[in-house]
C-alpha cells in the first residue's frame, strides 16, 4: 500500500499539468493532432489511477482539450468522480469540467444528484457556490425537480453570495420544472427587497425574464419595481426594470403616466455619465407605448441626437471614451425604436440618417437603412431613393449592395406602392437597378416589374418600351457572368413585351431580339418564356401586317420564326423544347395558309386573347370546394423516396394551374390547339402574375437546370454598364417636381375661382401653404388587390349585432363563479364562492398563491402570524373599485386591522381593477392555536364603476395545518438526536395506489407540505419540517409498489394528525 502511494507521488512529478499541455500544443504546431492524441492517451492512463490529485489534473487538461474542440464525453464518469472530491480545489475542477462538457443528454448526470445536494448544503459557502454555478450549466428537468427545494432553501441563506446565485439559478429551474414556480415565487419576490444589492439585481433579472414571457402575472409587482427604480443606483438593474415596465405598460395604461417623472429624473441624473445612453436606450424600448408624452420622447431624442450629430457627446467627452461609431450605432438603434410611434420627429432628421449611409462601418449603414424604410413619405420617396441609388453605385461588396437593392425595392413597394406617385419613375429605377453587377436579386426586380406592369394599366406603354430596350440590350446584362442572377430580369422583360405586345412600337425588332442565338445561353426557364412570348409577338405582328396590302412582310416574319425556332427545339431543357417544337409546327401551318392567301391573323391572335387580371393571394379561399372532393386525399399513391431523386426536372407538370377564362376559338386544328393550350397553361403557371406570389411560384424562378456547362463566350466589360437609350430615373425627380408645381398652381387657380365665387361669404381663406401628404396625387393608379371583399362589410355588421345580443344575454345570466382549483390542495386557503347571485356578468376569480405562511423570516419570531396573499382577477368587462376585504373573526384567528378600526370593519384593498387585470393583496392574520385547520368566512365588497352599484362576494378561507409549517433544513445528525429524544408522539398513515416515482412523491410532499428531505436511502426517506410555533414534524416515508407508508412523529399529536390527513388528501387528488 505504502509503496503504491510513493509510486503515485513519483509518477505525479512527471505528469504534465495544464500549462505543460498548452505549451506542448504550441510547440507542436506541425503535428498538433498527433501530439494531442498522445496526450489523450496519457490522460486516460492518469484517470485510471486512484490518486484523486492525478485525476483532477487529468480532468483539468481535458477541459482545455474540450475547448479546443475535442470530444471528451468518454471521461464523463471521471469528471463526476472529481466533482465528488472532498477537497475544494479538485471539486472546483470537476464542476468546471462538468459545466463545460455536460448537457441535458449526458447520462451520468443522474449520478450527480446526491453529490450536488450534499454540496449545496455544505457548510463551506464556496462549495455551495461552485455547485450552483455548475448546476446552472447542466441542470436537467430531473435535477431541477429533485433539487428545487434545496435551492429554494438556499435563497434565504445567510450569505448574500449564496443567495444571489441561488436566486439566479431558480430561473433555470423554473424553465426545466415549471411546477416549482408557484411555491418559489413568494420567496423570489422577497428577494427584490433584499438588503444586498447583488441579490436584488439577481431577483430583478429573474423576474424580468419571467415577466417577458407572461407579463400579466407580474403586474402586481409594479409598485415594488417602481420603488426600486427610484431608489436603485445600479445601472444594470435599472435597465432591466425599465425593460420590465416596457412589458407591463400595455397592460396597465396608467403606469405609463406614473413613470414619466422618475424617468425624467433618471435622465437628468445620468446626464453627466455614459449611463445616459444606457437609460435612453432602455427607455426607447419603452417609447413605443403610446402613453408616453411627447415631451419625454423628444427629450431623450434630443440627447441621442446630440450624440449623433456631434459624434462625441460633450458631456461624456470628459470622463468616458465611447467611440463615435459606438454612439452612432446606439443612436440609430434607439431612433428605430422611436420611429414606431413618433415617425414625424425622426423624419425631420432624414439628412442625418442619410449621412450615416456614408459611414465606413457596415453595421451603422445597415441600421440607417433600416430607419429609412419607416421614414419615407410621398414627398421624400424620390429624393431618398435617389440618394440610395448613388450609394448603390458607390457601394463596395456585394452583400451591402444587395442589401441596398432589397431595401430600395422594399421602400418603394411597401403597403401596395403607397408612396409612389409616378410609376414611370419606378420602372426606370428598376431598370437602372438591372445594371448592378453580380446581384443575387434579379428575381426580385423581375417580380416587381411584372407586378407593376400588370397592376398599373397606365404604365404599360412605358413599361413595354423599356422592356423592349432591355431585351435589345440583353447581351449587356448577361454578358459577364452566367451565374449572375440579373438575367432573371429578362424573364420579366420578355413576358411583358409578349403579353402587352400591342403597345410595342417596333414589334418586329423585339421579336428579332428575342430569337437571337445568344438567347440559348440563358437559363432554361427564361428561354421558355422567350419562346412562348415570341409566339405572342408573332400573333400581334401578323395582325398588324395583315391590314397592309403587301403580304410579303407577314410571310417574312413567319420565315424568320421558322428559321430561328429550331435553335430552341434542340434545347436541352424539356420545357423549351416542347414549347418550341409546338410553336414551330404552328408557324409552319400558318405559313402554309399564308401562301394560300388565307387570313390567319385573327385566329392566331385568338390563341392569346383575353385580359389578365391580378388575383388576390387568398382568392382561392373564395372558391367553394365541390362536393365530394377531398383535397387531402392522394390522387395517386404517394411517390417513394427514391423516385424523387430522378433526374427529371421537377415542377414541370406538377404546378398548380391557375385557370383563366378566355374566349376560345375552335376553328384551329383541335389537336394543335390542345397542345398549345397545355403549353400556355404551363407558361401561366410559371408567371408570377399572382400578386405577392406565394413561395411556390417563386421557386419556379430558380428552376434553372444546368446550362452552366454550355460554353459561353465571356465579354469583359470594364466600362460601367449603361444601357443606351434608357431614361435616367433622375429626370423623373425633376418632372415630378414640375408636375406637383403644376398641380399646385391648378389648385390655386381653382381656389382663386372659389374665392371669387365666395367672396361675398367668408372673409379670408388661408393659403394652401406647404403641400401636405394628401395633396400629392399619384400620377398612376395601382390596382390594389387586398383581401377585403365587398361582402365582408355586411358580415361584419352582423357579427357586431350578434355580439351585442350575446352581451345582453350574458348580463341576464346568473353569475357563474369559477373556483380555481389549484392542484395544490394543501394551499393554505381555498376560496369557495358559489353562493352569491349577481346581475353583473362578473366572473370573479379569486385564488390563492400557495403562499407559505410566514414565508417572511421576520414572522418566524412571531409564531402567531399568518400572511395570506390573494390574487384578485377581474373577469368582467367593467372597472371595479373601492374593494373591501372582510373576514368574520373566529376565536382563534383574527384579521389584523389597522389600529382604531372596529373588529368588524373591512380592509380596503389598495388598488382598483380594470377589466381583465389581476393584482395581489396581502392580509395578515393572527392565529392562536395552530393545531387545527380552520375555515374563515369572509366577504368582498366592491363598486362596479359603470353602474356604481355595490356588489358582494362571499368566500371561505381555508387555513390548513400545512400552511403553518415552514420548510426548515435539518441535518441527519440533528434529526437522529431529535428522534432519540423521545419527546415526540408518533402516528402513521398508509397511502394506497400511489402511482408515481418515489422522488416525485418526495418532491410533492416537499412542495405542498413544506417539508425538506433529510436523508434518502433507496425507497425510504426521512423528512422534516417545523411549524411557526416551533413544533417539530418528522416523517419517515417508505414505498413498496404502489403503497406508501408514512410514519410520523411530532410533539403535538393533533397537529400531526391533521397534517397527515392533508397529505393523504393531496395524494388522493392525483
Amino acid at each position, binding site marked *: 500500500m505504502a509503496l503504491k502511494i510513493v509510486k503515485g507521488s513519483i509518477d505525479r512529478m512527471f505528469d504534465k499539468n495544464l500549462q505543460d499541455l498548452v505549451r506542448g500544443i504550441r510547440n507542436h504546431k506541425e503535428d498538433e493532432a498527433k501530439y494531442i492524441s498522445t496526450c489523450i492517451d496519457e490522460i486516460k492512463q492518469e484517470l485510471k489511477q486512484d490518486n484523486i490529485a492525478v485525476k483532477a489534473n487529468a480532468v483539468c487538461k481535458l477541459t482545455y482539450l474540450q475547448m*479546443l474542440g475535442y470530444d471528451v464525453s468518454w471521461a464523463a464518469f471521471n469528471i463526476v468522480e472529481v466533482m465528488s472530491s472532498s477537497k475544494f480545489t479538485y471539486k472546483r475542477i470537476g464542476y468546471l469540467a462538468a459545466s463545460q462538457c455536460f448537457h441535458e443528454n449526458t447520462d451520468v448526470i443522474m449520478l450527480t444528484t446526491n453529490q450536488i445536494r450534499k454540496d449545496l448544503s455544505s457548510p463551506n459557502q464556496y462549495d455551495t457556490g461552485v455547485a450552483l454555478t455548475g448546476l446552472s450549466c447542466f441542470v436537467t428537468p430531473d435535477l431541477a425537480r429533485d433539487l428545487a427545494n434545496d435551492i429554494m432553501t438556499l435563497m434565504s441563506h445567510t450569505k448574500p*453570495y449564496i443567495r444571489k446565485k441561488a436566486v*439566479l439559478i431558480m430561473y433555470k429551474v423554473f424553465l426545466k420544472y415549471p411546477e416549482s414556480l408557484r411555491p418559489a415565487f413568494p420567496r423570489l419576490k422577497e428577494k427584490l427587497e433584499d438588503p444586498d444589492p447583488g441579490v436584488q439585481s439577481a431577483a430583478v433579472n429573474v423576474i424580468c425574464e419571467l415577466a417577458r414571457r407572461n407579463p400579466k402575472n407580474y403586474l402586481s409587482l409594479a409598485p415594488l419595481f417602481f420603488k426600486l427604480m427610484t431608489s436603485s443606483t445600479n445601472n444594470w438593474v435599472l*435597465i432591466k426594470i425599465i425593460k420590465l415596465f416596457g412589458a407591463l405598460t400595455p397592460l396597465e395604461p396608467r403606469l405609463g403616466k406614473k413613470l414619466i417623472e422618475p424617468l425624467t429624473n433618471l435622465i437628468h441624473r445620468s446626464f453627466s455619465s455614459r449611463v445616459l445612453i444606457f437609460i435612453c*436606450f432602455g427607455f426607447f424600448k419603452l417609447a413605443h407605448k403610446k402613453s408616453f408624452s411627447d415631451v419625454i420622447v423628444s427629450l431623450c431624442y434630443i440627447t441621442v441626437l446630440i450624440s449623433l450629430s456631434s459624434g462625441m457627446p460633450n458631456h461624456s467627452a470628459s470622463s468616458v471614451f465611447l467611440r463615435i461609431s459606438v454612439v452612432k450605432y*446606439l443612436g440609430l438603434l434607439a431612433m428605430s425604436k422611436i420611429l414606431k410611434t413618433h415617425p414625424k420627429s425622426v423624419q425631420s432628421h432624414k439628412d442625418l440618417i442619410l449621412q450615416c449611409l456614408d459611414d465606413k462601418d457596415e453595421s451603422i449603414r445597415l441600421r440607417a437603412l433600416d430607419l429609412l424604410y419607416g421614414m419615407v413619405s410621398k414627398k421624400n420617396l424620390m429624393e431618398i431613393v435617389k440618394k440610395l441609388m448613388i450609394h448603390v453605385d458607390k457601394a463596395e461588396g456585394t452583400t451591402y449592395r444587395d442589401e441596398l437593392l432589397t431595401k430600395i425595392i422594399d421602400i418603394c413597394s411597401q403597403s401596395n406602392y403607397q408612396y409612389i406617385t409616378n410609376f414611370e419613375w419606378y420602372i426606370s429605377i428598376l431598370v437602372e437597378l438591372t445594371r448592378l453587377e453580380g446581384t443575387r436579386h434579379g428575381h426580385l426586380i423581375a417580380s416587381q416589374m411584372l407586378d407593376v406592369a400588370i397592376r398599373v394599366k397606365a404604365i404599360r406603354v412605358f413599361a413595354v418600351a423599356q422592356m423592349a430596350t432591355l431585351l435589345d440590350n440583353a447581351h449587356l446584362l448577361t454578358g459577364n457572368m452566367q451565374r449572375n442572377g440579373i438575367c432573371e430580369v429578362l424573364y420579366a422583360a420578355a413576358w411583358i413585351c409578349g403579353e402587352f405586345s400591342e403597345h410595342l412600337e417596333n414589334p418586329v425588332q423585339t421579336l428579332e431580339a428575342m430569337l437571337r442565338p445568344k438567347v440559348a445561353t440563358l437559363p432554361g426557364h427564361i428561354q421558355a418564356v422567350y419562346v412562348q412570348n415570341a409566339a405572342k409577338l408573332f400573333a400581334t405582328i401578323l395582325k398588324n401586317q395583315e391590314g397592309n396590302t403587301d403580304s410579303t412582310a407577314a410571310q417574312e416574319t413567319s420565315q424568320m420564326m421558322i428559321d430561328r425556332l429550331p435553335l430552341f427545339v434542340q434545347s436541352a431543357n424539356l420545357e423549351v423544347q416542347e414549347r418550341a417544337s409546338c410553336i414551330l409546327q404552328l408557324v409552319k401551318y400558318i405559313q402554309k395558309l399564308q401562301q394560300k392567301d388565307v387570313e390567319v391573323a385573327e385566329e392566331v391572335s385568338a390563341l392569346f386573347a383575353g385580359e389578365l387580371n391580378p388575383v388576390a393571394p387568398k382568392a382561392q379561399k373564395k372558391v367553394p370546394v365541390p362536393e365530394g372532393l377531398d383535397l387531402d386525399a392522394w390522387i395517386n399513391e404517394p411517390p417513394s423516396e427514391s423516385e424523387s431523386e430522378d433526374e427529371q426536372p421537377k415542377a414541370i407538370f406538377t404546378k398548380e394551374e391557375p385557370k383563366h377564362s378566355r374566349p376560345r376559338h375552335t376553328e384551329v386544328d383541335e389537336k394543335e390547339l390542345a397542345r398549345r393550350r397545355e403549353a400556355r397553361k404551363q407558361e401561366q403557371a410559371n408567371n408570377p402574375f399572382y400578386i405577392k406570389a406565394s413561395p411556390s411560384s417563386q421557386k419556379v424562378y430558380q428552376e434553372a437546370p444546368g446550362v452552366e456547362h454550355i460554353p459561353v463566350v465571356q465579354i469583359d466589360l470594364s466600362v460601367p454598364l449603361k444601357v443606351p437609350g434608357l431614361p435616367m430615373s433622375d429626370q423623373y425627380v425633376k418632372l415630378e417636381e414640375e408636375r406637383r408645381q403644376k398641380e399646385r398652381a391648378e389648385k390655386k387657380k381653382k381656389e382663386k375661382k372659389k374665392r371669387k365665387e365666395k367672396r361675398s361669404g367668408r372673409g379670408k381663406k388661408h393659403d394652401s401653404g406647404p403641400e401636405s401628404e394628401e395633396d400629392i396625387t399619384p400620377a398612376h393608379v395601382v390596382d390594389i388587390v387586398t383581401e377585403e371583399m365587398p361582402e365582408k362589410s355586411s358580415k361584419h355588421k352582423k357579427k357586431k349585432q350578434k355580439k351585442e345580443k350575446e352581451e345582453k344575454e350574458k348580463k341576464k345570466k346568473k353569475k357563474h363563479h369559477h373556483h380555481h382549483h389549484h392542484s395544490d390542495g394543501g394551499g393554505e386557503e381555498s376560496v369557495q364562492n358559489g353562493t352569491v347571485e349577481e346581475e353583473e356578468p362578473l366572473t370573479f376569480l379569486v385564488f390563492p398563491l400557495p403562499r407559505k405562511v410566514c414565508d417572511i423570516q421576520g414572522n418566524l419570531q412571531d409564531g402567531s402570524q399568518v400572511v395570506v396573499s390573494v390574487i384578485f382577477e377581474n373577469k368582467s368587462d367593467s372597472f371595479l373599485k373601492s374593494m373591501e376585504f372582510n373576514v368574520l373573526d373566529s376565536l382563534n384567528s383574527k384579521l389584523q386591522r389597522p389600529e382604531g378600526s372596529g373588529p368588524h370593519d373591512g380592509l380596503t384593498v389598495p388598488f382598483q381593477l380594470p377589466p381583465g387585470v389581476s393584482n395581489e393583496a396581502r392580509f395578515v392574520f393572527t392565529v392562536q392555536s395552530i393545531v387545527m385547520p380552520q375555515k374563515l368566512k369572509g366577504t368582498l365588497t366592491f363598486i362596479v364603476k359603470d353602474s356604481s352599484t355595490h356588489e358582494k362576494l362571499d368566500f371561505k378561507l381555508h387555513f390548513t395545518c400545512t400552511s403553518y409549517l415552514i420548510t426548515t433544513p435539518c441535518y441527519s445528525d440533528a434529526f437522529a438526536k431529535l428522534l432519540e429524544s423521545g419527546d415526540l408522539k408518533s402516528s402513521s398513515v398508509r397511502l394506497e395506489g400511489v402511482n408515481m416515482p418515489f422522488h416525485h412523491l418526495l418532491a410533492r410532499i416537499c412542495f405542498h407540505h413544506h417539508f425538506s428531505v433529510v436523508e434518502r436511502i433507496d425507497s425510504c426517506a426521512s423528512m422534516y419540517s417545523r411549524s411557526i410555533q416551533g413544533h417539530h414534524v418528522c416523517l419517515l416515508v417508505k414505498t413498496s409498489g404502489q403503497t406508501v407508508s408514512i410514519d410520523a412523529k411530532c410533539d403535538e399529536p393533533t397537529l400531526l394528525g391533521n397534517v397527515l390527513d392533508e397529505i393523504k388528501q393531496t395524494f388522493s387528488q392525483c
Partner: protein
Amino acid sequence: MIKFVLMVNRQGQTRLSRYYHSVELSRRAALEADVVRYCLSRKKDQCSFVEYKDFKLVYRQYAALYIVVGITDSENELSIYELVHNFVEVLDKYFSRIMFNLDRVHIILDEMIQNGHIVETNKSRILAPLTTIDKMVDS
C-alpha cells in the same frame, strides 16, 4: 441574454470559450471560426456591434486579444459592451499582467455571468472567492 463569451487571439485561435446555451461540439468550431472571421475583418474605428445571423455580436479588442460576446436581441448592447471592459479590468486586477490560467479566468467569468445573465460587476466582490481559494491552496 448572453449566448456565449469567446476570447480569441489575432490568429483566430480560441483562448477561452463559454457557452450559455448548449451548442453541439461540432458546430462550436464552425461558429467560432465564423464569428472570429467577422470580428477580425473589421477596422479599429468601426463600431463594436455586428449583426450575425439571428443574434448580435459585441466585441472589444485588447491588444492582440479579442473578446466577443454573442447576445440575443433582447439584451442591451451597451451594457454588454461595458461588461466586457469590466471583465478585462477584473482580469487585469487579478493577474497583474495577462497570463494564461484557464480555470482562474473561468472562475472570474462564472462570478460575473451566470445563466447568461450578469450577476456581479463589483470588482472586489468578484475576486473575493478567488482570493479565498488562493489562500486555501497556499495554506
